[in-house]
């Protein structure tokens, strides 16, 4: 899904090989140079901010310019950037993130320390965005002068707004022929209630007015409110993994100071560590003697796994506990999918690729799973759809792994009424990931499904079709607002499972690519859920069971039966392909028996080619899964279970 921009960034910290030159770790010799004394930057001269934007609105170009102006990176490097991007990011318009970087800037005789804190650009990571934002006091909101406000602009704005941050609106790409900054200013005024004269019109590409942005950062964003004299209180807002040094945690200090040799404790895990190294990011790691309250940097403290430095966690000095910063929660997967090697002999290679990828992305949950049809594999949990796609794409591109990814499902819940089941689970509300765990309706008082609040921004001519699409997806309209004469913002409450498959593609195709979409978690709602089984000649096919909404049962059942009919080869007997809810059959397709299957043209031809074909068929027969007396090729399961990406 191309919903968003920067998303890969969070886990896209790659081996040095992949990074643009200015991101590559420095040679060790440069570490030896004198450490910077950070005590010369008191809280008053510090500004912590983020840049937020819809995909392709120019966030990273602006970041580059800021880094150049402040001398953080050299101007000659910029041309290489494009070439050094990751394939996955290039294809999706996601650039390697300029990581968090400390910029030094002299304004009106004062030396300022400006910490640019990068955030993942998609609400799949809204929690992580909110943690990153909580290290900031302000944001630069970038809007494309041509495209205007898009869905992700809205979502990002509200995250910043709710975090009570100062917002500096910036209209980018004013150099473009179709740029209409006036219209965008009006949109911003209407939607965000920001006076038009507060917007800064820039061209990040050409550097126009970028200096002015820096000055605004200093003027409008307040310095952090904290004190070096307080005990240490550090927020972990990001973490990466280095094969030599272990976990590198990016931290923002809300109080106190930290230096090498300090003993620290994680408020979440209660584990104790000794700090080996602290420093700032420029954007390379540059060790310093200390970090002080209000500053942003990194620390290395012998943590072995990224799960030890969870985003949102608070670190404090051993024996000097502090009140942890609010809002910590563990990453919660919202979309699950089965992942299997295309070829079982690839299992171990895939396993090690998964392990290496998840080293830098603790938000992916991995559970071993196996399917009679697809073999040994995993059930993976992702924060959202884009997260899943990017993960899969990186697996293919960076590890050359070809995988079968099953259609994504969402975590449902059931409120139990049966005392027996409540006792069994030790609680009265359970989460259901696998249809096999679906409790029947007699032992349940209520089923719940996850929902999201979706934001759609579209040219108004597509409204009719989009509303029809949303209704078809069981969505409830929450808001509809003209942001200017011809652009509309719609808000809908969607059941998550209705958008995980192909919603975004459908939206893009019916709006000729003009509508943008973003969503945020909106909790659970009661839903009329049922488990649907697929039967072949009366025998259930376990891997094709699914949990669906009652209203969608007939259509889904019919579709599955039709797809199976096409995917299963004709056999010597008739095959009934049925979708059933409990004992009730809701859809049926019949695959007729072969009446003739013999090549009536043999003599004159060499049998060699025919033998090869037959032997290949015999081989695949051995790999087929027998459901009752029906042979089902693995391929048929793949075709039915696999996500349709090319719709």
């Amino acid at each position: 899904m191309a919903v968003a921009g920067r998303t890969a960034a969070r886990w896209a910290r790659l081996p040095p090989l992949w990074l643009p030159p200015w991101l590559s770790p420095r040679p060790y010799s440069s570490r030896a140079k004198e450490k910077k004394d950070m005590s010369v930057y008191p809280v008053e001269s510090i500004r912590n901010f983020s840049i937020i934007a819809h995909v392709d609105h120019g966030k990273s170009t602006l970041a580059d310019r800021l880094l150049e102006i402040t001398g953080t990176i050299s101007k000659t490097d910029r041309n290489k950037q494009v070439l050094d991007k990751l394939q996955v990011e290039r294809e999706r318009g996601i650039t390697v993130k300029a990581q968090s970087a400390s910029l030094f800037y002299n304004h009106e005789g004062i030396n300022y320390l400006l910490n640019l804190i990068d955030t993942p650009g998609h609400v799949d990571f809204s929690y992580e965005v909110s943690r990153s934002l909580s290290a900031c006091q302000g944001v630069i909101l970038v809007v494309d002068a041509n495209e205007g406000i898009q869905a992700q602009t809205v979502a990002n704005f509200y995250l910043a707004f709710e975090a009570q941050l100062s917002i500096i609106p910036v209209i980018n790409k004013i150099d473009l022929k179709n740029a209409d900054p006036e219209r965008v200013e009006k949109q911003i005024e209407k939607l965000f209630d920001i006076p038009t004269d507060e917007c800064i019109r820039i061209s990040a590409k050409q550097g126009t007015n970028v200096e002015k942005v820096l000055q605004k950062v200093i003027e409008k964003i307040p310095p952090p409110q904290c004190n070096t004299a307080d005990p240490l209180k550090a927020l972990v807002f990001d973490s990466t993994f280095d094969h030599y040094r272990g976990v590198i945690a990016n931290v923002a200090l809300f109080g106190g100071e930290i230096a090498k040799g300090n003993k620290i404790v994680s408020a979440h895990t209660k584990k104790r560590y000794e700090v080996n190294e602290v420093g700032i990011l420029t954007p390379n790691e540059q060790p310093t003697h200390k970090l002080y309250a209000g500053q942003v940097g990194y620390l290395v403290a012998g943590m072995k796994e990224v799960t030890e430095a969870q985003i949102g966690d608070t670190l404090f000095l051993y024996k000097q506990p502090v009140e942890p910063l609010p809002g910590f929660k563990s990453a919660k997967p919202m979309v699950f999918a089965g992942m299997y090697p295309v070829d079982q002999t690839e299992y171990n290679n895939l396993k090690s690729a998964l392990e290496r990828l998840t080293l830098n992305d603790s938000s992916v949950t991995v559970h071993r799973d196996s399917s009679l049809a697809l073999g040994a594999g995993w059930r993976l949990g992702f924060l959202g759809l884009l997260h899943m796609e990017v993960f899969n794409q990186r697996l293919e591109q960076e590890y050359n792994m070809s995988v079968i990814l099953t259609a994504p499902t969402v975590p449902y819940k059931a409120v139990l009424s049966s005392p027996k089941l409540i006792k069994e689970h030790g609680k009265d509300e359970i989460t259901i990931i696998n249809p096999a765990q679906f409790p029947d309706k007699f032992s349940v008082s209520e089923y719940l499904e996850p929902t999201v609040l979706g934001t759609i921004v579209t040219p108004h001519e597509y409204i009719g079709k989009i509303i029809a699409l949303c209704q078809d997806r069981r969505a409830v309209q929450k808001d509809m607002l003209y942001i200017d004469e011809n652009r509309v913002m719609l808000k809908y409450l969607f059941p998550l499972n209705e958008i995980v498959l192909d919603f975004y593609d459908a939206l893009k195709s019916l709006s000729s690519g003009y509508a943008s979409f973003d969503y945020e978690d909106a909790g659970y709602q009661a839903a009329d859920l049922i488990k649907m089984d697929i039967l072949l000649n009366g025998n259930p096919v376990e891997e094709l069971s699914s949990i669906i909404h009652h209203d969608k049962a007939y259509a889904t059942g019919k579709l599955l039966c039709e797809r199976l009919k096409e995917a299963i080869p004709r056999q010597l007997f008739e095959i009934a392909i049925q979708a059933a809810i409990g004992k009730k059959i809701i859809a049926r397709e019949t695959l007729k028996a072969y009446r003739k299957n013999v090549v009536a043209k043999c003599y004159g031809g060499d049998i060699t080619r025919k033998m090869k074909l037959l032997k290949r068929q015999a081989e695949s027969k051995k790999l087929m899964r027998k459901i009752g007396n029906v042979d089902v090729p693995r391929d048929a399961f793949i075709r039915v279970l696999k996500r349709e990406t090319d719709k």
Partner: protein
Amino acid sequence: WPYCRKRCSYCNFNTYVVPAVDEAAVGACLVREARTLLHLGQVQSVTSVFFGGGPPSLASPGSVAAVLEAVAGAAHLPAGAEVTLEANPSSTDTPRLAGFRAAGVNRLSLGVQSLDDAELRLLGREHTAAEARRAVEAARGLFPGRTSIDLLFGLPGQSRDAWAQGLEAALGLCDDHISLYQLTLERGTALAAQVRGGTLPSPPQDLLADMYHTARTVLVAAGFRHYEVSNFARKGALSIHNLSYWRADQYIGVGPGAHGRFVPWGEGGRRREARVQTPEPVAWMREVQSQGHGTRSRVVLSPLEQLEELLTLGLRTDEGITHERWGHFCPQLSLRAVFGAPGEAQALQEQGWLLLDGSGLRCTWAGLAVLDSLLPDLLCQLQR
């Protein structure tokens, strides 16, 4: 024979349309290669000869005679041995056929394909229905009881009734042997391209099944024995040559693209080999002239592979694979030991597709029509 006057719309055989054929040179090479291979195979006696290809009726009776003389010179060719010539109605008049008969041909296989002019045009055949009739009559006059006709069914747009009518017409015309072929849309042919492109309809599976069943029923009712998937004969007029092929006997293939299965005792071989001759006529001739034969590929067949071929070919016939024939290939493990044990074959027997009894393993009437669905199962069992 590798040459054709015109390529038919459905044909992907190894044939070449060239303006002028140096028949003397090609004939000489056929003679030379036949001698070499007969020697290689240490062939004592030849039971049948089959002239097939582009069709060979385009060659002169003299060339046919020369090859037969070479065969008789290198091995014993009994007086009654079956010698079949494939012929097209368009290259078959009585004097020409008489010439072939004088050269030693005693059985004719005529590529009639259809008795409907529109269908013949669709197939890109050179002849008309009337010419086909005249050719069959001429052939029957010269080769009474030993003339076979080929018919095609499953043409794009052909209805079941049209096929039934064509079959009736053929029955009124034919001798004692009919070969029925379902049109296969081979890649690279004009007809396949038209069907894929949507200008011609693709015949539905069920219709093809109906046509096949109709033909079987009609022909058996007319006294024909359905002795192989595509072949019907009455009064014992079975094709000896093709029968030996389905029985997995040894045979040598002579000419461009020809294939053979034999043990090359003559060069110290001990195992049966699958051989294919060089397909391009010019290259093939060069090889024959320099080394006596134009063998392009030789693959030694393992005992298992030989059994797989025996199974695949043998089950196409109504006699199936006899215990005797099986024992010839696999003396150490009987047919019953392999397929009588619980497994796929037993299940297929229970479902009524297959029979294993005192005479051997064979398909039932219903099983023959779905043989290609039975074989993968049987091969699995055989491989165990």
